């Protein structure tokens, strides 16, 4: 009897485990599908509360485009603001500081600037770095991005290329799936991209991580129908 019983439970355990795994996988897939479906829909922000905003500065021309956009957003809506740039990029944060300082002069609103923070993030790979060392630097970059995202937990992410934004966007998406924080992710493709999306843009497009992708040329929009054509930012 005892022997039979243990044999029975031995038979059950793998079955139970498989059932558990199947249920878990199915529920994760349902949650994923729900998040992807929900991400494409506009928010119902009836109270019109300000949203904490993460602004990822690419570098060089990317930063210039991003700051052109940020400069016309209503600051009282997008607050607090967190600017992030690659640790090897010294110019971008400086330029965003100039923009934020000019805002103070305009509105004399101390509250607005107190809510603004500037941060640097490790890049996963520098131009010309070997692929072998890239593995460890990528791991470090991901950990650093995770720490930043836990700290910031933004409701809105506005970013553009190159790759600096990718770990941040993926973490934000996982936060959505896990129910930690719902965020809206906006990606602006560079004006230099006329015929094909950049690698970053393509990743966010194909994996449906970005809620909205903006492109600056009409032919790019017709090639990638889920994007939005917005004209030139430069």
């Amino acid at each position, binding site marked *: 009897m005892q022997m039979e019983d243990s044999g029975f439970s031995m038979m059950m355990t793998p079955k139970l485990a498989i059932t558990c795994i199947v249920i878990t996988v199915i529920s994760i897939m349902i949650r994923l599908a729900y998040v992807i479906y929900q991400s494409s829909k*506009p928010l119902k*922000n009836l109270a019109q509360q300000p949203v904490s905003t993460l602004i990822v500065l690419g570098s060089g*021309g990317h930063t210039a485009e991003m700051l052109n956009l940020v400069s016309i957003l209503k600051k009282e*809506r997008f607050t607090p603001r967190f600017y992030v740039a690659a640790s090897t990029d010294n110019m971008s944060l400086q330029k965003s500081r100039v923009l934020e300082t000019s805002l103070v002069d305009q509105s004399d609103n101390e509250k607005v600037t107190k809510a603004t923070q500037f941060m640097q993030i490790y890049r996963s790979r520098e131009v010309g770095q070997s692929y072998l060392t890239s593995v460890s630097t990528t791991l470090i970059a991901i950990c650093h991005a995770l720490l930043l995202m836990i700290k910031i937990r933004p409701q809105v992410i506005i970013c553009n290329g190159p790759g600096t934004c990718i770990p941040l966007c993926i973490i934000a998406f996982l936060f959505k799936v896990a129910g930690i924080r719902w965020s*809206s992710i906006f990606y602006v493709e560079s004006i230099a991209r*006329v015929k*094909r999306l950049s690698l970053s843009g393509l990743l966010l497009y194909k994996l449906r991580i970005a809620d909205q992708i903006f492109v600056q040329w009409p032919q790019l929009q017709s090639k990638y129908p889920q994007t939005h054509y917005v004209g030139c930012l430069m």
Partner: protein
Amino acid sequence: MGGTDDDGDVRSVKMVFVTVGTTCFDALVKAVDTQQVKEELFNKGYTHLLIQMGRGSFIPTKSAGGLGCLAVDYFTFSSSIADNLKSASLVISHAGSGSIFETLRLGKPLIVVVNEDLMDNHQSELAEELAERKHLFCAHPQTLYSTIANMNVDALLPYPPADAKPVAKLINRFLGFPDD
């Protein structure tokens, strides 16, 4: 910006500024430094040629200018090329988006020369698109001479100012904020 003082001995300074940015683009510097190109520029009424040659190793020949030839000078880098662009009558640039838009915003005639040696050459896309819209001329190092010979600077259209309002509108709408 037609030719001025064409019949006078003393021509007003008409500067051609060549920039390769932080790149190494010897093919462009070489193409500009050929006798053919320099003569054609002179025939078009330009008097001075200033070359920012970046990390390239090809050194162009300096010239004080004077009778029937262009004054040529060069430098490697400067902290800002804004003043050079401002004083130029014609800009010949590599295809980097930074110098393209800096030049267009100043309303200067621009020839963009695409560097074919670059591996992932998506930047030529931008130059070709802007050339199609008649905001600039697009050339390759070997076609620079014919581009200069055939160009009509007055046919270029001014580049419209950037407008971020459409993006801001879409973001606001998506987040449930009213339009401004």
